């Protein structure tokens, strides 16, 4: 699923980044690499951007960017969803 569709509190594993190279390169250096585990911490008061916890740091992305990042939901998160 897309990273932007994850709910606050859910976590998952990052799969792909379908973004221009300069963007994915920048994100990669912040820890956005396939296989990294990512957690949705909170949304900004206006509902967007969203703060993610990845690789020990907190990074905020707009949903227009997070849309192009796919994740695999962690099992625990999936159960919560159902």
């Amino acid at each position, binding site marked *: 699923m897309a990273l932007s569709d994850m709910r606050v509190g859910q976590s998952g594993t990052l799969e792909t980044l379908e*973004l*221009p190279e*300069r*963007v994915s*390169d*920048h*994100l*990669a*250096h*912040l*820890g956005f*690499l*396939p296989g990294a585990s990512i957690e949705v*911490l*909170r949304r*900004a*008061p*206006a*509902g*967007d*951007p969203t*703060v993610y*916890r990845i*690789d*020990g*740091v*907190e*990074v*905020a*992305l*707009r949903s*227009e*960017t997070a849309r192009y990042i796919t994740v695999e939901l962690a099992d625990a998160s999936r159960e919560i969803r159902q």
Partner: protein
Amino acid sequence: MSCCTPSPVAIEDAPVAAQPGSAQPRNKGRIRTIALIGPPNCGKSTLFNRLTGMRQKVANYPGVTVEHHSGRMKSFGRPDLTLIDLPGIYSLATYSEDARVAVDVLKGNMPEVPAPDAVLLVLDCLHLNRQLMLAAPILSLGLPTLVLLNMADLLDARGGKIDPLGLAHELGHPVALISAAQGTGMDLIRNFLDQFGEFALTRPGSARLPIIQSPASCRKWASQVSSRSQFREPESPLWTRRLDSVLLHRVWGPLIFLVVVIAVFQVVFSIGQPLSDGLGDLLTRAGGLLTAMLPDNWMRALLRDGLWNGVQSVVVFLPQILLLFLFIGILEDSGYLARAALIADRVMRAFGLNGKSFIPLLSAYACAVPAIMATRTIENKRERLATILIAPFMTCSARLPVYTLIIAAFIPDRHIFGHLVGLRASVMLGLYALGFLAALLTAKMLNSRVMKASSAPFVLELPQYRWPMPRSLALRLYDRGKLFLKKAGTVILAVTFVVWGLSVLPVHHGGFSQLTDSVVGHLGHWIEPVIRPLGFNWKIGIGLLSSVLAREVIVGTLGTLYGVDPATHAASLQTALRHDMTLGGAIALVVFFAFAMQCTSTIAVVRRETNGWKLPALQFTYMTCVAYLGALVTNQFIQHMFR
């Protein structure tokens, strides 16, 4: 506290002397130039300031340094060594202007900057897994490198761990645990420099670096290296998250943001104004005493009515300026600024502003010059130009004296909303909002016409909260105060001198002219028709002309003009203005200042950053037109309302 007092054992993995002929050390084997490099917000500039005794700006968000700065390592006792502070980079890829500067200097491709002989690689050891990614490309450069694990005090306090000796072994380069903020571990840097300085050592490349340095392979390598060096990640500080759950709360977040902003203005008035009045009284008395000692001739008139009045009327705003910078400093150093960026992003985006524009625009609240420099972090050229164009609309600190003067003179000191908020602070807030709105609307206009290209995404790293360092705050206030007084003592003094001269010349029958018959008087009356619709008299007009140099100059000019005029000679500038201007004219004046680009420094920096006069000329014309129209509408509106 083993981490705070690192033992020299950390660099015991001593560099081995080069075999003859195995490498060609530059500069006859002596190191002279050392580059400071590291990822953004890892504390390079804090270390630079500590080693050189200089004062580069530091704050708690990524991208504060956008230029290279050189300094002799004086406070380190090694004035023979030059240290170069560089903008933070994640890799050697150069997408933005600031990263290009760092890489060019590092590779010795920057004209007029000597190629570095050694590198101090600064890494934030709280996030070593990620920060180590930069070590791969930097160590591949083959320069003698000391790896500095900064913020070792925090690693220790939060239960993290690292084996520096093991890491040094892994990297094949010496490693030292330091804290640039606390000043620990500096002796290790000294040892490193001494060793290299005396023996002209180079490294055998013992580190097993990733061969293909893609982000993924660098990251994998970094994880392996850090796990082999027994790195234990510190616990994430719970209170940063707890604080964020309040400060970024759906309801409380924006509310607290608003309260913080209002509180800043409230304090600038309720504490700053009495201090400023006190300073004014003191200076008036001092001026009276000093000039009383002089014989009563034209010299005395020049000194008292001209120079003293002019410069004093600007200097009295020192307390307000310092208070404003104290608040800006606390917000920047604590890490709250990044949260403010997050809260405001929605509004910014509605006007088509790129996420990276926010930090430059925020720093424009202090001064547009560093803000325009900070746009170097924006990769897209068109977006960078747009941000440069709108930055001078943000209310810089040079507008503060003009705003405070007019508000204190014309707006009654009343409370609104019960006893919570002062009317004066609210008007000030309104003026700040007005500038911000002009910036946003201009951005919107540019967005639909100029910036159709794909925009850089909003990627914001939220730094952990930390207490502002009192030392760094105090130094910044000191520097700001000095800068302000220096301006008063140079530009403003010079303008005041010229204005006074022109206000008493030409000499008729051996005596000075009356104000209205003087050069200034004639010039003023000549331009008066243009500015009368705005509610400005000719004295304000002269002030406006002089303020093209810098905004606060108008206060000095008015101080002189009303000081020379016998009718207002004895009154304070506030009183004089109250008798000489209508409410409409006064408010129109601050509106004019909210929009106009009265600042030669800004014009100069825009010219430099855009390599030409086209943009600054366009910008000056546009902003002056907006200012004129804004002031015209304001004056006409208030005249009709209060008739």
